[in-house]
């Protein structure tokens, strides 16, 4: 459906480098040719976007000693170390070292995550800026999505599985409290219920989000703040947002928590919860905490799922149609 349509969309000349000796054959991989071409255009557009804005492309270690402690994100062991679940902590160390604008495109790994929209090895785009907050990142994300869609498809609208989506100019913003009151009938900011929150998020909120344009869910209860700072005007919520397009979660952004004492407290609380659940408890990343102690200016950052963005722009419903080497 969507992928076949891509064959008819104009492809910028640079995207078509013939591969010597390649004969399209009957390999099961052949069907991925259009989506691989699309992905290549998307990756190039992402790099063009950040290069033009003065961001430094960096690569940080994939095999690490101390994955970020998060309650529901499990790292895959790799010998006596772990595979990163996100490059976040290393990139923030570079921020603290004086790099002001950074981005990274690369593989991340999460144990046990496999579904239509999940794959245990996936590509994340993360970028960080100092002297910015989550609103600045939102403006930048909007510009990025527009630029990528324009470069990859030659337009800023999508027909995703019978839904027409205008990617520009309007993005609807809902607070998490508003979204839950509307679609799930309760307010997690006033009274947080961890059991209900995740379940209602996936079964009641996400499927009912407006679909005609991108949607931003904003201001999460501090119980699910992760590494986001509290909102100064309302300390019950954290400055965190998530981008949804066609009900698919595409990106997660924070105004970063830069207070080393609060960060240490949150890691310790998370370690205790993980221990109580019988999950592996990763060592504290003391190098990261030392970087916060040395002083991290106000900063904001985001992680964007590249495979899902490709899925969306290709108009397909599952990563099965995006990742050629996915085992059934």
């Amino acid at each position, binding site marked *: 459906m969507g992928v076949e349509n891509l064959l008819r969309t104009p492809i910028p000349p640079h995207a078509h480098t013939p591969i010597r000796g390649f004969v399209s054959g009957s390999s099961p991989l052949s069907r991925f040719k259009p989506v691989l071409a699309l992905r290549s255009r998307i990756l190039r557009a992402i790099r063009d976007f950040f290069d033009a804005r003065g961001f430094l492309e960096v690569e940080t270690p994939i095999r690490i000693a101390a994955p970020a402690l*998060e*309650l*529901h*994100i499990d790292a895959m062991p790799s010998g006596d170390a772990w595979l990163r679940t996100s490059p976040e902590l290393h990139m923030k160390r570079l921020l603290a070292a004086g790099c002001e604008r950074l981005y990274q495109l690369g593989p991340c790994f999460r144990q*046990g*995550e*496999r*579904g*239509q*929209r*999940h794959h245990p090895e996936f590509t994340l785009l993360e970028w960080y800026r100092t002297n910015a907050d989550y609103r600045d990142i939102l403006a930048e994300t909007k510009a990025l999505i527009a630029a990528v869609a324009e470069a990859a498809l030659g337009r800023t609208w999508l027909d995703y599985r019978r839904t027409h989506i205008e990617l520009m100019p309007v993005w609807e913003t809902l607070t998490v409290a508003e979204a839950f009151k509307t679609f799930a009938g309760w307010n997690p900011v006033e009274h947080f219920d961890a059991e209900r*929150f*995740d*379940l209602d*998020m*996936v*079964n009641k909120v*996400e499927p009912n989000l407006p679909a005609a344009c991108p949607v931003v869910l904003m201001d999460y209860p501090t119980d*699910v703040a*992760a590494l986001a700072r509290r909102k100064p005007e309302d300390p019950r919520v954290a400055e965190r947002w*998530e981008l949804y397009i066609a009900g698919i*979660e595409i990106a*997660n952004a924070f105004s970063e928590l830069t207070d080393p004492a609060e960060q240490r407290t949150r890691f310790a609380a998370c370690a205790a919860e993980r221990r109580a*659940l019988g999950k592996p408890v990763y060592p504290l990343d003391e190098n990261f905490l030392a970087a916060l102690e040395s002083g991290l200016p106000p900063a904001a950052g985001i992680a964007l799922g590249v495979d899902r963005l490709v899925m969306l722009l290709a108009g397909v419903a599952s990563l099965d149609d995006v990742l050629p080497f996915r085992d059934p």
Partner: protein
Amino acid sequence: MYSASDLRKGLRVEIDGVPFVITDFNFVKPGKGASIYNCRLKNMITGATLTRSYRSNDTLNEPKLEERTMRYSYKDGDEYVFLDKNFEQLTVRAEVLGDNRFFLVEEIEVTILVHNDAPIGVELPTFVEKTIVETEPGARGNTATNVLKPAKIEGGYAIEVPLFINQGDVIRIDTRTGGYSDRVRTA
């Protein structure tokens, strides 16, 4: 015992002592949130469906199910008796058979699904042959198969058949749909 991460389409599980088969499965996980395993399940006894969301720590029992190849022997009131090759006997109630009870013929080989020693389903061969015991006289020469009339087979099962079918004709019935397939021979 299955943990939530074992769940997948086609897996048979037990909920409150009842066997279910997963007909639809999706792993979902909100950003930074817990893994949720969304399932649509079909009750293997009643056919009713339900949806359930499981979490990582949830467990489900594996139902004790067995498929037995047996031959139909005889009917005893509301119960149908089957024998396997060792002449072990299994009795199946009419409600478990549903309409399939009309399609049994002596010595027909069937697959019986047994849960905790109780038969819960009987699978017949795709086609069975049955004699028409009641219908209006056939319209000779009318070979159209798209115009149908009511008829009955032994046991009183009502079936729609083409106009050219007569009382005493033997027809083939598709047991998946319970509908007429074709004529085997005339009376």
